[in-house]
């Protein structure tokens, strides 16, 4: 059974803290993605990774960085959290095969106070 897991469902942090969001997939997928989801804006791509140690900026990378040291794990890092980074964060993975869809994790709702 397909599985993408995220380290926390809910997280509360303070402005200026360094925040790590972890995502793990067990499908041996090469591609992994981090999105944030805000009301009225849909899902917006922050960063993605085609393979281990490879990363590409998405549409809204400012204030974020990522790490992909192992194929199954993709981490999103907020170097210095700010209140405008309060959001739902969704991780996804997929095979680069055209026919495959993208599988999502359960999401992490991050609140920055």
């Amino acid at each position, binding site marked *: 059974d397909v599985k993408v897991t995220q380290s926390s469902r809910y997280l509360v942090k303070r402005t200026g803290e360094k925040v790590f969001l972890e995502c793990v997939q067990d499908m041996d997928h090469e591609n992994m993605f981090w999105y944030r989801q805000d009301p009225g804006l849909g899902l*917006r791509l922050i960063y993605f990774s085609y393979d281990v140690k490879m990363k590409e900026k998405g549409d809204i990378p400012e204030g974020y960085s990522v790490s992909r040291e192992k194929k199954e794990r993709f981490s999103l890092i907020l170097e210095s959290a700010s209140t405008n980074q309060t959001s739902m964060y969704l991780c996804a993975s997929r095979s680069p095969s055209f026919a495959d869809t993208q599988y999502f994790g359960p999401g992490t709702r991050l609140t920055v106070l």
Partner: protein
Amino acid sequence: EDKVVQSPLSLVVHEGDTVTLNCSYEVTNFRSLLWYKQEKKAPTFLFMLTSSGIEKKSGRLSSILDKKELFSILNITATQTGDSAVYLCAVFNQGGKLIFGQGTELSVKP
């Protein structure tokens, strides 16, 4: 700039009603269009559409794509309260990037 637009943004219906959700897109090098259902958790996959005019069906849900007019619709017949969710439309471009619409929030009242 690639864009996916869904309408309406929100919808309230009563059980038994039929609803139609719309998704229009402007995407360079279109590859496929996907529909997801999102309750209070991760989006779950519903349909992938690549060819015009071929209806995909799963129970009370169906979807069709029009590549000439650049839109897709998702139909839900005989709605139930369990259909209440946000429905997301997304389009893959040739570069493999998935572009999402804003979502339609459907609320089905008993």
